[in-house]
């Protein structure tokens, strides 16, 4: 069994925030977890590297005020799009 997308994303966030992964809830924002500004951009970068995906540029919103679930959803969307393009997943 490989970890779910959510488990993988939460593990990346936990590492950056230096917190126990069990404390991350889907409704937590990165800001709630103490991840702001450049650190939030770093989390995005770590997620992109891990899944080999590229998030579209943000639509005026801030990653640090998005919930962790919305990040997981964005990853899943990017993975689905990649699979649909026939590139397979990493």
């Amino acid at each position: 069994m490989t970890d779910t997308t959510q488990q993988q994303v939460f593990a990346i966030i936990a590492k950056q925030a230096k917190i126990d992964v069990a404390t991350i809830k889907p409704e937590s924002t990165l800001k709630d977890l103490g991840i702001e500004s450049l650190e939030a951009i770093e989390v995005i970068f770590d997620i992109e590297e891990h899944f080999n995906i590229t998030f579209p540029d943000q639509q005026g919103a801030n990653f640090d005020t998005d919930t962790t679930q919305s990040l997981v959803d964005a990853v899943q969307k990017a993975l689905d799009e990649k699979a649909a393009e026939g590139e397979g997943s990493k």
Partner: protein
Amino acid sequence: MPTVPQMRRVVITGMGAISPLGVGAETLWQGLREGRSAIGPLRHPDAYRLRVKIAAQVPDSFDPTSNIDERTLIMLDRTSEFALHAAREAIAQSGLDFSQDELGVRTAVVVGTGVGGENTQDEQSKRLYGDNSPRAHPLTIVRVMTNASASHISIAYGLRGPTFAVASACASANHAIIQAAQMIRYGMADVAVTGGTEACLTYGALRSWEAMRVLADDTCRPFSINRRGLVLGEGAGIFVLESMEHAQARGAVILAELAGVGMTADATDIVMPNATGAAAAMTQALNDAGLAPQDVDYINAHGTGTQANDSTETRAIRLAFGSHADRLAVSSTKSMHGHALGASGALELVAVIGALRDGAVPPTANLDKADPACDLDYVPNIGREMPVRAAVSNSFAFGGLNAVLALKRAP
């Protein structure tokens, strides 16, 4: 406050620019005054694989060979080409002849740049790491060094006073102009050639900006609620500064007086701006110029078009100007010439000089939806004819560095 001995007044007698609006300071000023934006599709060999799709670039009609001899040209990165061209224009306008009277010994050169010879750095890195070439071009070092622009201006005109580069990211030009002005004020030089230059739209730099996620994908909309970030630009603005007595003694045409300067650091965050630090720099510039808030008619804002800058700068202006903030015309010309980083304060000084000289404030282009957090008069979309007695020009840099100029109409 310590008293300052015999501080001399500083005036501007020449300006030159290479900008996304074209060649020449007047070209830039007329375009800004008319509200013409030079932001367009990114022209770059790697554009097809980049996420960033727009930029404000110097048009291809700029011909570096037009004013620079071949032997000099081979030594120049694009950054220095811009600076040397703009310097030639500024010096020609000033009417100064540096071959006379040992004037060169009393002339300083201070040029701001964020990163220096980025195009050369990028090209040579590609050659070494990408193409596995065993050799770098022998002129790599002299093209890359951040002081190259200042040095080439010095060499071209025999300017032998204090000459160096200043780097403070997006505030580099204003910091450089301030150093030049201070040297004239305190008698270290009678004349200074100063400003800022930047040409860093390389594949590597563009990828790095993408990763920071601060670039707009549509256009630059400062102070508009639908703003989506900054738009990268490039160019150079170079000015001739003189002590007022030196300019008056030779009957020079004075474009404006550089009356006061302010510099502070936020000392808070490496990227998030801080209203207190920015306001303190504005207040310092006003005090230094002997201006009360109500003497000022126009602020050329830093106005990058990022969420963080525009609301913070608005708060800072309110802190520094109090109730007079509501009577100010404030505009961000980055909406038209983009964010030229280390050159931005210099391109914006062209706008400020134009505003003081011609009694016309350039607009903030693309401001189509008011933001409750940005509640000043930003001169949306259409320039305004109005007398401008004094003006302030803001530059705030990553790293929390603030540099502000206060100017008065030519006496």
